[in-house]
């Protein structure tokens, strides 16, 4: 049976090209891999090889022809026993490939909307549960220890997590309890051990990878984004990476530009990641336990300044906090202050001071940035008609700017004032004490913002 040889597409964007030169003539026998012609694309001249074997029965497009559309028949290949004379007229050009694709009626349908986040219930704290003042540091350690007791597949790796007991003492005591098989010191090699962690997660384990700080995770960003976050999608749901990347994020104190960045907005942008940034010790514990059990990659952003702060933690066997559920720390009717992580410190301090001046602020702790509990924010704004966001990150494309746009889209008619974003300043972190203070957001700035939106 005669086979048409079609003008090939030789690049992702090629639609037509020049048939520069035939390297075979009518009557030549060819086998697969033989070069038939040279074809010029907009980028280069390419050799075009035969796929099938046979004899060149007829050349339909002469060399030197320009603007030959992809999938036009350029020659006819005949098999043994056939003759070029058998081909009376050139066969019509093949239909473009797109026509062959079964697009059916789908083109008329709008893509499905993203599935709404189903917010799970928070562990109920029974009446009479003992509350114990606990530092964020100990809460994080307890969360890891409990989950490591719960499942053999959970292990911790990172720089100084074992023998040194953690650069910030978050893993204190874990080596003693779980041994060196499950609490693993790595060399200083973030790109490498982040990749090994993701590979171990592909292999079915549940790694907790500690970055000494999230500044160093930039060395590993490719493994976090391209390997951990995207594999479930790229594999059509076959395999993902149940892994937690955790460590301190944001400014500490006087450590300069390279050690003082808040990466919340960076990670929150990536589909496939979950992003957590707790404020209190109870949330740190409950959210980290949830993160370790989650079958997806979780970015768990801690804060060095908060490590030593104490909060009440319920003394329960298995206290978990769900993702995607904001916590209302304080109810109020005059303004909604939305924050997360250490920003909550400024938000709560400002709310206390504002109360003395007769302004009742509602303070919302997002706790998780992806998924983000926007319904809680919108509901509150509908009540207060005003909103101030607070975070330590840079102002451009910040979490606050995203929240502002969502409020504009979903509660525009409820707003009595523009939303104000309190953020870190648009500068690398300076070292000098006075400049560093100026670069961070402050309680005073939050109070001023609230007064501005409430026209006081």
């Amino acid at each position, binding site marked *: 049976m005669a086979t048409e040889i079609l003008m090939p597409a*030789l690049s992702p964007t090629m639609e037509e090209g020049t048939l520069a030169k035939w390297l075979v003539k009518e009557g030549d026998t060819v086998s697969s*891999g033989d070069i038939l012609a040279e074809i010029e694309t907009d980028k280069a001249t390419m050799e075009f090889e035969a796929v099938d074997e046979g004899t060149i029965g007829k050349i339909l497009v002469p060399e030197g022809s320009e603007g030959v559309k992809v999938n036009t028949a350029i020659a006819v290949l005949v098999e043994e026993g056939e003759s070029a004379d058998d081909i009376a007229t050139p066969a019509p050009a093949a239909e473009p490939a797109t026509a062959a694709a079964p697009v059916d009626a*789908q083109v008329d349908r709008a893509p499905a909307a993203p599935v709404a986040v189903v917010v799970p219930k928070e562990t109920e704290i029974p009446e009479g549960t003992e509350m114990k003042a606990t530092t964020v540091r100990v809460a994080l350690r307890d969360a890891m220890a409990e989950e490591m007791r719960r499942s053999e597949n959970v292990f911790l790796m990172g720089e100084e997590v074992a023998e040194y007991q953690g650069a910030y003492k978050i893993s204190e005591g874990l080596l003693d309890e779980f041994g060196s098989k499950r609490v693993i010191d790595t060399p200083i090699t973030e790109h*490498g051990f982040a990749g090994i962690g993701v*590979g171990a997660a592909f292999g079915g384990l549940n790694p907790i990878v500690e970055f000494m700080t999230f500044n160093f995770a930039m060395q590993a960003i490719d493994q976090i984004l391209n390997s951990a976050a995207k594999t479930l999608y790229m594999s059509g749901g076959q395999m993902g990476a149940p892994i937690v990347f955790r460590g301190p994020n944001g400014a500490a104190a006087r450590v300069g530009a390279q050690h003082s960045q808040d990466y919340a907005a960076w990670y929150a942008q990536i589909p496939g990641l979950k992003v957590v940034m707790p404020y209190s010790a109870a949330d740190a514990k409950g959210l980290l336990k949830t993160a370790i059990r989650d079958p*997806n990659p979780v970015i768990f952003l801690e804060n060095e300044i908060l490590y030593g702060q104490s909060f009440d933690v319920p003394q329960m066997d298995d206290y978990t906090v769900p993702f995607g559920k904001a916590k209302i720390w304080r109810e109020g009717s005059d303004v909604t202050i939305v924050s997360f992580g250490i920003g909550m410190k400024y938000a709560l301090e400002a709310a206390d001071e504002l109360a003395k001046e007769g302004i009742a602020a509602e303070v919302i702790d997002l706790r998780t940035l992806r998924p983000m509990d926007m319904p809680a924010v919108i509901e509150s704004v509908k009540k207060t008609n005003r909103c101030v966001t607070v975070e330590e990150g840079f102002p451009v494309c910040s979490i606050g700017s995203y929240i502002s746009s969502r409020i504009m889209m979903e509660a525009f008619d409820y707003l009595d004032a523009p939303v104000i974003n309190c953020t870190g300043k648009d500068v690398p972190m300076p070292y000098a004490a006075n400049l560093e203070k100026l670069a961070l957001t402050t309680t005073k700035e939050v109070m001023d913002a609230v007064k501005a939106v409430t026209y006081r």
Partner: protein
Amino acid sequence: MAAKKSSKKPNVSKEELLQYYKDMLLIRRFEEKAGQLYGMGLIGGFCHLYIGQEAVVVGLEAAAKEGDKRITSYRDHGHMLACGMDPKGVMAELTGREGGYSKGKGGSMHMFSKEKHFYGGHGIVAAQVPLGAGLAFSDKYRGNDNVTFTYFGDGAANQGQVYETYNMAELWDLPVIFVIENNQYAMGTSVQRSTKSPSLWERGAAYGIEGEEVDGMDVLAVKAAGEKAVAHCRAGKGPYILEIKTYRYRGHSMSDPAKYRTREEVQKMRDERDCIEQVRDLLLTGKHATEDDLKAVDKEIKAIVNDAAEFSKESPEPALEELYTDIYMEAEA
């Protein structure tokens, strides 16, 4: 076409030899068909063909056992076929259809099979190297004797994360075989133009990792080296490096005119060193098969590839709802 006779005595049975011939031929015919479908616009984007390198994966798969894992770069079609993935599912992924291994959401560079322990299909050069060591870590953690074949090219061999991984793999005795598929060109840059190292496998010595160079056009040599590497890993001796000297006949991707080498260089390789011709020669001169037997094999392979191509055209495009699925796995209640 005169193939250079292999100097090696076959260390395999007639059946095994015939199987390698079939496996390599399947990859070659599959890739030729993929190139054709690309030309027709049925396959889009990037498409990196494996033609010329078939002996590497077929030889190493001959040394693997159930439960062993494999991971590679974007030039991945051959690896998938060699580990037993269905040509239909692979081809339908290339055409971006529902019947593809990733439901059309991965494409040529991103396919996976949990069932066959194939962990991709990775598009960032060398990113699969620490991932492969991580897979090996999971086997060591569980205490089984499985190994992970971690494939990467001569180009990837200059990435820093390879050496970060070498260091930890040896430090922790991970059962990983680093397979450097040295096809001599990182896209258009030859090995000689990218490093002064006389060999790539010897770099492992700096980390205490053993290794060797292998003739990648000789499937039996690859198999023998693979068996040695596998035995090393299974015995708990840590990683092993195989630098397999191979050659790709086609461009880096479909849109590469390959002007960085001469047509004669490619033709010489095809004429004198072709991996499939070498086995064909062994089969015929050893009287393990007749010309007719091999013709029947050719026909059988052609039918498999044509079926895969047909399937890849007939399988529908993914439903539009698929845009928003597989981003997150449901957490257990």
